[in-house]
């Protein structure tokens, strides 16, 4: 019987054929901890193994992005626990507080390959599906067990196919496509499903756009998502990893639970309104809402292309005096490129603030917390109640919409104001 991508990947790591719904033990290629969850993993691991050795120090990575550098002493302590563990276990892949968002950093360092299984203490691990890797977020017990055993139990998720029909142009972006996807699916529309994307728009989506879409599959409760690997992305992965890249593709006759067709012809800029990511409307429907803060960054929209899109909107303009505008590159590599390309200057001259790479205020771990009844437009992925400040209202939008909103001081539809020549 034909297999879906996820069945092939898990089967390959379980050493047997698997089908949706099966419970199997599968080998892990990479287990990742962060300053969030990481210290608990270390403590649990030490207790479970009586301070034993990890299964393979080369297959463990530590990234600091939740609160890097630490703003409370407890987190500083937690990071120290991870560092000490790395030294004790001979784990060389420790990415310090200067590096940025873990998944993006691992990708830049060539540690993520199509067909591999990566587990980590971050529910957005699965954005690495953008390059064909089965990456999934887990709790601390799982990761502690993975550190000890190099394998874990998996439920094989059923697969769904999502086909985007039609196309759209600037100022709609991959984020708007993503929000439309979340709207159509709803908060649990891909619950524990492996989503395989198809469509012309998908084929042409650059890595940054795929990361955006893959990261928010989480917001539809999806387990993972996959894209047809493009030549450009394969070349990038080869260059970074120094390895030959073999895409994993589904077999003819693979079984899909369902096929969903989403028409994105002439897609308009979208925005997720408080307090759920699937509460998506056209930006034009909420135009005029006054905002106090705009955040451009996160694992969803912190790529260079995202920053560039925001900078193009902000260039030569000033952000509204009421709007605290915070720009956060995903990684130090993105930061360096943005610095060299003059993006920092554009942001700073516009009155925005550029912070160090990391998850930024997307996790309440980082600075940028909102006051009660304050309103923010964020390019992040979650706008749950209280997510970045008790009693605050968060809207999720594209970097273009966010940047334009920062300038206008209120939510503004880029389709009305901007168009690319």
């Amino acid at each position, binding site marked *: 019987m034909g297999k879906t991508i996820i069945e092939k990947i898990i089967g390959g790591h379980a050493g047997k054929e698997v089908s949706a719904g099966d*419970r199997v033990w599968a080998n892990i290629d990479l287990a990742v901890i962060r300053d*969030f*969850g990481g*210290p*608990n993993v270390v*403590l*649990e691991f030490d207790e*479970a*193994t*009586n*301070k*034993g*050795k*990890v*299964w393979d120090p080369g297959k463990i990575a530590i990234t600091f992005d939740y609160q890097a550098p630490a703003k*409370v002493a*407890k*987190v500083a302590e*937690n990071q120290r626990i991870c560092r000490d563990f790395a030294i004790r276990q001979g784990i060389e892949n420790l990415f310090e507080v200067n590096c940025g968002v873990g998944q993006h950093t691992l990708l830049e360092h060539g540690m993520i390959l199509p067909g591999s299984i990566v587990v*980590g*203490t*971050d*529910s957005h*691990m699965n954005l690495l599906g953008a390059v064909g890797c089965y990456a*999934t*977020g*887990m*709790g*601390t*017990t*799982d990761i*502690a*067990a993975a550190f*000890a*055993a190099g*394998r874990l*139990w998996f*439920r094989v*998720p059923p697969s769904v196919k999502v086909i985007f029909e039609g196309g759209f142009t600037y100022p709609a972006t991959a984020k708007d496509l993503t929000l439309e996807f979340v709207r159509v699916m709803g*908060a*649990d529309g891909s*619950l*524990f499903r492996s989503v395989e994307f198809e469509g012309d728009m998908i084929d042409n989506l650059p890595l940054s756009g795929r990361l955006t879409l893959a990261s928010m599959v989480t917001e539809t*409760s999806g*387990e993972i998502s996959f894209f047809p690997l493009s030549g450009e992305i394969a070349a990038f992965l080869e260059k970074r990893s120094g390895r030959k890249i073999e895409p994993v593709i589904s077999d003819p006759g693979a079984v899909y639970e369902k096929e969903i067709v989403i028409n994105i012809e002439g897609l308009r800029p979208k925005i997720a309104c408080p307090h*759920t990511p699937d509460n998506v409307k056209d930006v034009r429907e909420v135009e005029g809402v006054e905002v106090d803060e705009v955040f451009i960054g996160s694992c969803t929209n912190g790529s260079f292309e995202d920053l560039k899109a925001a900078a193009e909107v902000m260039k030569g303009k000033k952000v509204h005096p009421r709007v605290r505008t915070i720009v956060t590159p995903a990684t130090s590599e993105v930061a360096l490129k943005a610095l060299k390309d003059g993006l920092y200057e554009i942001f700073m001259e516009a009155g925005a603030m550029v912070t160090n790479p990391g998850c930024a205020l997307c*996790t*309440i*771990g980082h600075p940028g917390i909102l006051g009660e009844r304050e309103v923010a437009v964020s390019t992040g992925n*979650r706008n*749950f*109640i*209280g*997510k970045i400040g008790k009693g605050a209202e968060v809207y999720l939008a594209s970097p273009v919409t966010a940047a334009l909103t920062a300038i206008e001081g209120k939510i503004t539809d880029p389709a009305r104001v901007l168009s690319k020549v």
Partner: protein
Amino acid sequence: MEEVFRGRAWVVGDDIDTDQIYHGTYLPITDPKEMAKHAMEYVPGIEDFAKKVEEGDLLLCGRNFGSGSSREHAPMSLKYCGIKVVIAESFAGIFYRNAVNIGLPLVECESLPGFAEPMDIVEVDIKTGLLKNITKNTEIHGAPLPDLEMEILEAGGLIPYMKSHGMFPGVGAGA
């Protein structure tokens, strides 16, 4: 291990995310008993859950319970505040794993809506998935827990399970 639990029912709606179950503010906490004090604190209407919950209570939820973050604090806070079983129309993937891994039983039941009012006495058999509303004298069938999850629960969680199956080769002498 116990397979049948009887207790008061707490009833919540759809899409209760991990920030509502256990808010990000409290992530630095590592003591489960401390975590328990903040269980369900951001669920509108039952902010005082942690104060009122009693040992042996059951939690009945709508669709997609536990969506969002990978924080294990979420099931941990429920387990340590006394919740014996979480029953939901459906569970988010990470929450599901986390609960099983720490030994908190789950039952999925599609026909849960309308089954119980808050504080009804409910009985659940995790092995068969049978749900009885003692107060209303009704019953419905949920999905029985699959074998692997049941075995992990019986072992007391993932770590003891894997240990007892010889999956931890690198156990040290301690330091």
